[in-house]
């Protein structure tokens, strides 16, 4: 899976992003950057605003303020369905595969923003190489897959559009320890190939295994940032967020 086959990856810059639900502020003016090939994690307790941040970034919930650029291009006004054309792939929390469609159709839908040609066919082969199980089960309805297989399908589907940045929300949720290991391997492989990753994850092993730096969120704001190595040694992070 080659990242950046649609041009050079740019830096994702999020500035002053905020989200309100009714009168309640879920995210207040947060900012961070993801450089090309970098992997950034967002950690924090439930309700800290991690998922809202990702959804606002993707344009899936209305933003009450903020600016988003990717490689200098302003994406603030880009609609959710067009984010994929700008090279951002999204794997939502809870998978959301099209359960009535076959595995193959789910993957093809991931590439619907592109013409079906040799490039997309090659990408399908690459996804199959990354997740052999998706090739074996290509004709099964996605709803008949186990939770772990659906998670792989959700990642594979996002990769089909050839993103330069992959945004993942809790990819390990509900997966067996062995499968968490497989997801970790896949994310590491993608990182090696130059894909940028933005990861929200509760599993500390996966977060610190994949990311180079992390943003710690608390009550909708950035409480601290640092390299993953520093943060994994920080006693407060260990105590409050990781429960170690």
């Amino acid at each position, binding site marked *: 899976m080659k990242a950046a086959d649609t041009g050079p990856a740019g830096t994702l810059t999020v500035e002053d992003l905020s989200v*309100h*639900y*009714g*009168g*309640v*502020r879920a995210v207040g003016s947060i900012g961070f950057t993801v450089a090309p090939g970098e992997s950034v994690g967002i*950690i*924090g*307790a*439930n*309700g800290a605003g991690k*998922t809202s941040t990702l959804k606002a970034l993707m344009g899936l919930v209305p933003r*009450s303020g903020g600016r988003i650029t990717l490689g200098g291009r302003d994406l603030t006004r880009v609609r959710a369905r067009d984010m994929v054309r700008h090279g951002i792939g999204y794997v939502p*929390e*809870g998978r959301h595969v099209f359960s009535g469609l076959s595995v193959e159709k789910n993957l093809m839908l991931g590439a619907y923003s592109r013409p079906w040609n040799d490039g997309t066919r090659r990408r399908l082969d690459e996804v199959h190489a990354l997740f052999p199980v998706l090739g074996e089960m290509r004709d099964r309805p996605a709803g*008949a*897959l*186990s*939770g*772990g*297989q659906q998670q792989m399908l959700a990642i594979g589907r996002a990769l089909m559009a050839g993103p330069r940045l992959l945004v993942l929300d*809790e990819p390990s*949720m*509900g*997966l*067996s*320890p*062995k*499968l*968490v*290991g*497989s997801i970790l391997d896949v994310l590491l492989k993608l990182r090696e190939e130059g894909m940028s990753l933005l990861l929200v994850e*509760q*599993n*500390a*092993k*996966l*977060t*610190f295994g994949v990311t180079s730096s992390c943003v710690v969120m608390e*009550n*909708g704001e950035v409480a601290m940032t640092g390299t993953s190595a520093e943060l*994994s040694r920080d006693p407060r992070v260990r*105590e*409050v*967020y*990781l*429960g*170690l």
Partner: protein
Amino acid sequence: MKSRSAALVTLIAGACVLPYGLGGYTIHVVDIALIHALLAIGLGLAMGVSGQINLAQVAFFGVGAYGVAVLTTHYGYGFWAAAALAVPATVATGLLVGVPALRMQSHYLGIVTLGLALGFINWITNARITGGADGISGIPVPTLPGVDLSSEYLYYYLEVAVFALGLLFGLFVVHTSLGRRLRAMRDDSLAAGAMGAEIPYLRMTAFVLASLYGGLAGVLYGGLIRYVAPETFSIGNMFILLAMVIIGGRRSLVGCVVGAVGLTLVREWLSDFSTYAQLGYGVVVVLMVVFAPTGLAGIPARVRDLYRRRAGHHEARAELRPFTPYPPAAPATGQPVLLVAESVTKQFRGLRALDAVSLTVRAGEIRGIVGPNGSGKTTLFNVISGFYRATSGTVGFAGDDTTTARPYALSLAGMARTFQNLRLFGQLTVRENVLVALDRTRTRAIWQYAVWQPGVLARERRLRARADEVLERYGLTDFAEADPASLPYGIQRRIEIARAMAARPRLLLLDEPAAGLNGEEVRQLVRIVRSIRDTGTTVVLIEHNMGLVMSLCERITVLSGGRVIAEGTPDEVVAAPEVIEAYLGDSDLTEAGLPQPPTAEEVRRTEEAPS
């Protein structure tokens, strides 16, 4: 509260003086509007509140009206005697129309009820007793000592009284236990069943309510117009009725009333352009469904939200507070067997999801069930809790054979569960979610609604106080009025546990309670589950977080490919090579992210130590 009662007084005064300013024709339109409002309340109760697609409301209206017409003109009954028979006859019709709802839902139910309505229209157009296409005229004027009800002005007061009682009763139903169950059934009938809501009875209740209002409206119509003919009960009018409910807002009875009155008035204004009017309703309905799916009734809340956002009005951020442990009960003695599954097999077409699985859980135990994704863990929960019927094998709970028991029966017998994919009732507040489970009364207790409303209210007050206790204990007080879908996964999981425990179960089944929780939250979960067990509730949990399973469970059952591949103490199970091969992989349990599991020795020490 004060402004509310002031508004109510104004409304009542307005309703009383309204006829004084209106001409003869206008009061006729108002009389018709009130009849439509009653019909719309009935339809709103069935469709908006209970989620039962009912396209036979116009037939219920017809049964009421024709009932009065036939009984008075053919059989010589007085108006009131005829009305007293016509309304129960309509309710009986409602029960019949409701029977298909026991087997089918959504658009299938819509087609069947539409078919039944068409059958009714066909019958009244052709039967001799109904006067065929000519209908029946000469329905006598209802008599009331000292009041001449042939005056449409005075008839208005009769209608207002019936309408006001009908609206009050409807609101009373919606905002108390029965309505809450109906709404829970609408949002998620599976989860409602698991909380003890007797789904078949509730579906029938929805049709009884719809037909009761249909019958009342029909009787009033008969007395007002004193003539009935098939065209009043046509499918076209069913569509307008549907439009009233959708435009007004089907989930709010007041919205239904506003829609009914509004559309009746608009229809009168547009009566010179009737060809275009029908098209106009169609356009308005489409626009409403697309842009304001909650109807007119939902608009104030949307405006309020918008205003708050614009005004930068900030509410305090709600916070999940720590759990307060239950006071421990005396430990169960003797540890009788509570749950038994014996060689349970579940076959889905070509897939054998469970293959001769046997499981015995003793009272007071915390049992863990682990296994790879797709190994049949949730299927086993679904068989135990009555969602699936085992292809072969038996399940026993608390000494009874429950292999074929329905979820609501198991809930009433003391079994509660949570759901891996979160099944909170989306349109109910967090408090209402808990109230659904707290309310252990049987659905047949709804006779109280007809005869003893203060009893219902008193019980409602007790339940609310208890719900607040449950929310407080689980640290959810800040979220009591929140819409659960807007909350983060971790908090929704906590609500699921609180809701399940509100049913005071003997057995609690937890399906992946730690998914999406971070380390500290997992530690809190451990405290919650321990405390639940200490109240005497037996816990069976499915979980992938091995740290949690190791520190909580006395025994662990490992499933793989639908079979039990290992069972034993945590230490025995994690050492078994087949478990490592199938489930754990090369993952190191002591690595970051997994709270260090205490050894069995440590667990014993902490449990023996006086706390």
